[in-house]
């Protein structure tokens, strides 16, 4: 029997992003009503169309009911007990990074996302979001030379209002679901990307979301528009400190791909997951959706979900343009008392559209991991195809895995293929690897990364290596 305290230490150690930055913040009072929304909009100096957008969304949200169909159990969220706007106090106008509070730069340094000119990552442009606001975006000038717009969404509202007005809410309408409506009403910041016609974005773009306050929610909004024949690869990372309360995170991500455009969206989600007793952790209710509007357009989601106490997330594709392609590659790992209900929706509307779903769920400890997916073939989706593969791996005998595939076809001339499997890491497999000199923990992580290989192959290089390490860390002390 392994010493119980040792196991606890190891599990605690696994979350190295649990620190809090001690910084003066500007917070508004708790609670949600029209005045709060007006206040947020006013603080951000928004044009009227956006305030109207928010207020309409809020009215809809008030009439909606929190969804309860997911295989998740959690304490009811008190939406009046949340702070909807929290920002580190800074000078009014920041013209360069030198004016950013060093504490903030230090925070992102510690997270491995250096922002300063000397240290910034060489081949990735980063938008760093801290609680409700974007702190800095690197490589803006270089990107601007190619006509690429990469900035915080608040800035885009000011400088590219036409694009925001044209596209915001066109993929995920405010009335889409409870959490999307909430986000539409109160979203504070996030990233905006615009790739002009014919441009292949010269570097990967990345947003890093950091929650710092314990009592405020994070409601970020991301919008990516890829014009005809353009392409972009976008990465998203998330961490939060360890608090013993739950923090709500309800984001909306919208992607739009026009003719022959392609968007690759990769996420490594490592929000604080709560402790081994299930105390604390992020409630992660996210709506991510891409619209393949153009012919032969392509949207590819890849995600590695390892954090959060609760994950409710279904990155989806609306395949409108003929011969458009949607992809979803997912690894979701749950440990201790984490719960995840995640998957995708592939809605085939245009003819000869194709989608691929590869989902790998790993459940350890007492966790619960569900795949939920919808594949729909509309009446006009002739000659369309879907391939889905959903595999679950169980570690230990207390974890559970579910698969809920929904298939709806209104088009007889289309193909849907679904494969599913469940496996367990057995004592015999571990003994076999150990008897070849391979340490116990390494044996587990070899098997887990083997299980996830199909998905890791889809991630950008640095992300894949990081994901591999992250899974190994998350699983330390979970077996035995």
């Amino acid at each position, binding site marked *: 029997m392994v010493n119980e305290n040792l196991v606890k230490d190891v599990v605690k150690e696994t979350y190295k992003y649990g620190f809090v930055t001690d910084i003066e913040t500007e917070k508004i009072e708790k609670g949600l009503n029209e005045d709060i929304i007006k206040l947020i909009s006013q603080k951000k100096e928004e044009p009227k169309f956006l305030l109207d957008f928010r207020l309409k969304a809020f009215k809809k949200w008030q009439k909606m009911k929190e969804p309860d169909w997911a295989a998740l159990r959690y304490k009811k969220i008190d939406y009046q007990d949340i702070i909807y706007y929290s920002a580190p106090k800074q000078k009014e106008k920041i013209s360069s990074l030198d004016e950013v509070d060093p504490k903030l730069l230090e925070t992102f340094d510690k997270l491995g996302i250096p922002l300063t000119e000397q240290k910034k990552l060489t081949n990735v442009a980063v938008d760093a979001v801290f609680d409700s606001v974007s702190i800095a975006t690197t490589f803006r000038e270089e990107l601007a030379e190619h006509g690429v717009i990469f900035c915080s969404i608040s800035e885009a509202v000011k400088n590219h209002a036409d694009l925001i007005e044209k596209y915001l809410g066109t993929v995920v309408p405010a009335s889409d679901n409870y959490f999307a409506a909430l986000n539409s009403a109160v979203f504070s910041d996030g990233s905006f990307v615009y790739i002009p016609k014919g441009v292949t974005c010269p570097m990967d773009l990345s947003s890093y979301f950091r929650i710092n306050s314990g009592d405020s929610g994070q409601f970020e909004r991301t919008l990516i528009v890829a014009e005809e024949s353009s392409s972009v690869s976008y990465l998203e990372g998330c961490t939060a400190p360890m608090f013993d309360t739950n923090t709500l995170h309800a984001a909306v991500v919208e992607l739009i791909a026009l003719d022959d455009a392609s968007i690759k969206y990769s996420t490594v989600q490592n929000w604080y997951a709560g402790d081994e007793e299930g105390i604390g952790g992020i409630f992660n209710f996210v709506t991510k959706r891409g619209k393949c509007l153009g012919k032969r357009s392509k949207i590819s989601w890849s995600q590695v979900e390892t954090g959060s106490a609760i994950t409710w997330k279904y990155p989806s594709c609306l395949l409108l343009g003929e011969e458009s392609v949607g992809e979803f590659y997912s690894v979701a790992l749950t440990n201790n008392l984490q719960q995840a209900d995640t998957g995708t929706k592939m809605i085939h509307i245009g003819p000869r559209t194709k989608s691929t779903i590869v989902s790998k769920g790993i459940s350890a400890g007492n966790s619960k991991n569900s795949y939920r997916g919808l594949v729909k073939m509309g009446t006009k989706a002739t000659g369309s195809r879907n391939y889905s593969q959903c595999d679950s791996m169980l570690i230990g005998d207390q974890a559970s895995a579910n698969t809920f595939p929904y298939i709806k076809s209104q088009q007889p001339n289309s193909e849907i293929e679904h494969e599913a499997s469940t*496996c367990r890491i*057995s*004592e*015999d*497999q571990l*003994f*076999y*690897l*150990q*008897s*070849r*000199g*391979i*340490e*116990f923990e*390494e044996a587990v992580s*070899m*098997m887990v*990364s*083997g*299980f*996830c*290989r199909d998905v890791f192959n889809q991630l950008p290089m640095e992300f894949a290596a990081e994901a591999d390490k992250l899974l190994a860390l998350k699983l330390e002390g979970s077996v035995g």
Partner: protein
Amino acid sequence: MQSIMKESDPILEVENLSASTDNLPILKGVSLTVYPGEIHAIMGRNGCGKSTLSKIIAGHPSYNITNGDIKFLGENINSLEPEERSQSGIFLGFQYPIEIPGVSNLEFLRVSTNARRKFLNKEELDTFDFEELVKEKLEIVKMDQAFLSRSVNQGFSGGEKKRNEILQMALLEPKIAILDETDSGLDIDALRIVASGIKKISNAQTGIILITHYQRLLDEIKPNYVHVMSDGQIIKTGESDLALELEEKGYEWTDNFIKET
């Protein structure tokens, strides 16, 4: 019984070993000593404890040692982890090699080999150097390189799995190899390949324990000693002709030994 002069220290000493699983006694006082260069065969009916003995020497966590000691190169290894035993030079060839989906055979072999090399203070091999080494060793078991890119044992035929075990033995260069029914499920050709592989890998410094039901492996690899196990004990030890006698007379003949003891 004629005794060979023992000039060096034993590799493995199993001393009066008793072990159980789920409180069910499986081994009831087994003693066995293996010196460098020796080949021992252990025979016996199914369920007599042969495989259990091999697993316990390799450190399988399902069994509890209730009495006795296992010594490797003079050191007690009762409480060592399986990986530590492997790294220090104990090899178990599995009767039923385990399938590990998703883990490439090449990577598995490399990590395993490097764990042993690290223990021996040898330089760990990168992918390129390791490929050179493994190509050489593939010759020994007449395996095709295509084996390397597949998942560990997944979809391998019975013979391929056993050859993969011998390939691992060739890479790990153990001090002692316990081969649990390595001959079962092999056709004549595969048996010859496996047997010649074992002979190539072993030398005057290594010890081998062959667990088998059949004389045909022992025709290929002549043991110095043959032990007959029954109900968790070694009930008779002889030289290679004991195996022949056993084949002729069957295990019923050995039932008398139990009465004698």
